């Protein structure tokens, strides 16, 4: 059977890896290529790169980093950030990305998922959502979690999958950066609605949080950033820990 996946996420701005608390107060951590190599060697199952650069110069730096990483790291690479058109898919796929994640770009242009899935296949299109509770509803937020779109997250996910998204990254704004565990209530609600793999994001603070996550059978992967970058949790150790708990892991 398929192993559960552990995925470190690298937020890249102007050529450097950053990770903020609740999306604000970004702090510099490391060189993305070096960090990617470290994760590859420590057993990460996949890497996610988010380009949070705004400038054209930063974007050029990003594609260069992506190329260098893809030439040295032989695990799947997912790229997101600033993906608005099929041409953006093309640009990052040519640099060595295997999957492309769309977030605000799909909200601005809902036909993007369908067009990209038709051209590159469902397995290539990842729908990434930043979700927060508003008046008892799971609501999709755009622009890095700053703007309430008014969209119901579960409806949005179902629509995205219907259009060809092959995987969903669910980032709970409510638990992100708080390190008290993943948002299991939100994740279970999503798992009940869609049949594609779900990557949980937001809230991992320790190894137990991953063990708890994988007792929920609808969840395929756990994604985190700061706890891995700070080496608070070592991926190699985490995977052995989970395997001892009976979770299928590639170790």
């Amino acid at each position, binding site marked *: *059977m398929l192993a559960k*996946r552990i995925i470190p996420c690298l937020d890249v701005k102007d050529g450097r890896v950053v990770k903020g608390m609740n999306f604000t107060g970004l702090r510099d951590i490391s060189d993305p290529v070096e960090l990617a190599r470290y994760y590859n060697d420590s057993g990460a199952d996949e890497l996610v790169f988010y380009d949070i650069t705004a400038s054209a110069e930063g974007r050029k730096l990003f594609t260069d980093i992506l190329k260098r990483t*893809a*030439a040295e790291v032989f695990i799947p690479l997912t790229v997101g950030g600033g993906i608005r058109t099929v041409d953006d898919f093309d640009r990052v*796929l040519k640099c*060595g990305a295997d999957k492309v994640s769309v977030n605000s770009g799909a909200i601005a242009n809902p036909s993007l998922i369908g067009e990209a899935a038709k051209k590159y*296949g469902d*397995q290539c299109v990842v729908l990434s959502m930043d979700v927060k509770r508003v008046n008892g509803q799971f609501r999709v937020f755009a622009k890095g979690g700053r703007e309430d779109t008014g969209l119901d997250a579960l409806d949005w996910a179902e629509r995205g999958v219907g259009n060809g998204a092959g995987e969903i990254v669910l980032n709970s704004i409510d638990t992100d950066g708080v390190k008290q565990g993943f948002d299991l209530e939100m994740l279970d609600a999503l798992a009940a609605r869609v049949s594609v793999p779900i990557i949980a994001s937001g809230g991992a603070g320790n190894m137990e949080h991953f063990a708890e996550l994988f007792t929920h059978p609808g969840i395929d992967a756990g994604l985190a950033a700061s706890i891995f970058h700070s080496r608070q949790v070592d991926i190699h150790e985490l995977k052995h820990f989970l395997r001892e708990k009976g979770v299928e892991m590639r170790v």
Partner: protein
Amino acid sequence: MIAIIDYGVGNLFSIAGGLKAIGAETEITRDPVRITAAERVVLPGVGAFGDAMDKLRATGLIPVLKHEAEHKPFLGICLGMQLLFDKSEEYGEHEGLGLIPGRVCDLRRDLSDKTLKVPHMGWNALEIRRDDPFFKYVRNGEYVYYVHSFYAKDCAVNTLAVSRYGDVDVTGVVCRGKVYGTQFHPEKSGDTGLRLLKAFAEL
């Protein structure tokens, strides 16, 4: 030199990178002269079977590939592996290269447990069914990375390894003569994948 066939399908960059990492010399090409001169051939592929066969046909390389497959180690990866078979049932029936007997069918249809997710995407353990020099550097049970919705069947006699998904033995590695195929992506299967590529480069 290992010729990586460029017919407008798939991520050649990663395959070239993986082969380079194990010290092999590669060339991404659609030139029959270069393919004939190569010591080994890799046929990549991502996407739909019919579309890929059309593109391959358009290059005029099919007779060259069929000939080379008889004479030198030849590796089809992912959709490139599926193309080695007689036919596929992906979006209608399509004829393949016919280098390995068998057919490519819908995985979802054969899974009894309909809650299992398709595409079969992620890391699955390799069960080696028949020893082969291709497995010189890997052990039974190592994990490899799959992304696919169709799989090869009716090819047990040429199957070297499978991965279990639900109640289906997904054909993972096939071999007939010098022709090899992997349903998974060795160039995305971490160190295990690189060791398989190394063994292929030494065949």
